[in-house]
């Protein structure tokens, strides 16, 4: 029995120490921990809202969107890059073949599959809300590329700026002392006139994540109070499109 127990204990110890070993490997930053949002990285140009860069069809979608259709009324979460801009803490767990990002915001859990470990690419039909995230370490940075998103009515902004199935988000995370810093580039030629960037930084915290614990009954309460009749007339929806805002209808 002792002959078996020794190697088993050694293997278990190696598995448990894997995140630490990874962090010490050259070119692999230690990103593990619970991170408290501080704000944009100081000294850089301010983050610009994606609303500024939205194409006319995106503005038209937003203007015509009926708020009672918001997925958040049913506790449906947001995706990147929106979740990056929201003021919540998150946790990174670093493993040999993947990283797990766990957010306070809507209890979202993302899996970042590291390249070179045999995880298959998504199939043609494999579109999801959070997309498929591939990661690699590059110059002491974690680079995440995410694509294969489903159409999302607030995929770029809470003001119903949607994202299409062509959305692609690239995030870069790195350590600077006790800080975690991130820069992201979001692209979607159907929705945006040009890509936009976010940059933020976080500091380590000892506070545990606070569960979002979405309550569907509460979440949907306000929905019942919206007066939806005005949205039922297709001509009226037409009048709300941007080409008519502040102008003369043809």
């Amino acid at each position, binding site marked *: 029995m002792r002959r078996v127990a020794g190697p088993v204990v050694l293997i278990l110890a190696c598995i448990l120490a894997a995140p630490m070993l990874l962090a010490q490997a050259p070119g692999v930053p230690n990103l593990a921990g619970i991170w*408290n*949002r501080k*704000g*944009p990285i100081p000294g850089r140009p*301010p*983050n*610009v*809202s994606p*609303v*500024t860069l*939205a194409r*006319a069809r995106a*503005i038209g979608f*937003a*203007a015509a969107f009926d*708020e009672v259709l*918001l997925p*958040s*009324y049913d*506790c449906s979460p947001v995706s990147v890059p929106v979740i990056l*801009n*929201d*003021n*919540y*803490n998150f946790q990174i767990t670093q493993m040999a073949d993947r990283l797990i990002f766990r957010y*306070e915001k*809507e209890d979202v859990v993302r899996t970042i599959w590291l390249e070179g470990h045999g995880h298959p690419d998504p199939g043609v039909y494999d579109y999801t809300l959070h997309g498929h995230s591939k990661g690699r370490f590059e110059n002491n940075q974690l680079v995440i590329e995410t694509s294969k998103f489903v159409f999302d009515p607030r995929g770029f*902004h*809470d*003001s*119903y*700026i949607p994202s299409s199935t062509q959305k692609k988000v690239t995030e870069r995370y790195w350590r600077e002392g006790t800080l975690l810093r991130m820069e992201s580039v979001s692209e979607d030629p159907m929705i945006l006139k040009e890509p936009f960037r*976010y940059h*933020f930084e976080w500091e380590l915290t000892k*506070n545990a994540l*606070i569960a*979002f*614990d*979405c*309550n569907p009954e*509460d*979440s949907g*309460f*306000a*929905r019942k*109070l*919206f007066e939806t009749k005005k949205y039922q007339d297709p001509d009226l929806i037409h009048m709300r499109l*941007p*080409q008519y*805002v*502040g*102008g003369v209808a043809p």
Partner: protein
Amino acid sequence: MRGAICAVALLLASSAAAHHSLSLFETGAPVTLQGVVKRVDWRSPHTLIFVETQEGGVATEWRVETVPNSWLINRAGWTIDSVKPGEQVTVELYAYSDKTIKYGFLRRVIKADGKVWASPLDIGRRGQREPGQ
């Protein structure tokens, strides 16, 4: 130009609370209530405070929404003891436009000892420049 105007209009209509817009509430005319806290639900997307007031001698319960639990705790310094059932409080809120429904969005709670617990609406998007700023 119209696109920019439209974008600003969209942002004004959108929510600082992210989960839903504040268009339901009369944000131009805050309402002040005095009553007793009956229950606090520390959840999301809204921490809810239920306050019983007396209106013409009749007990009336108000449903007061605020921001998510983690924003109150991590960003605004609240603890679960900040507002507790049984406490006499003054509540400032933005009321729902139909006054037959006792529902509002919290601005701040003022306790009997004068302590103020605010529910800042600008917590959500810290660090993003919107058009017009």
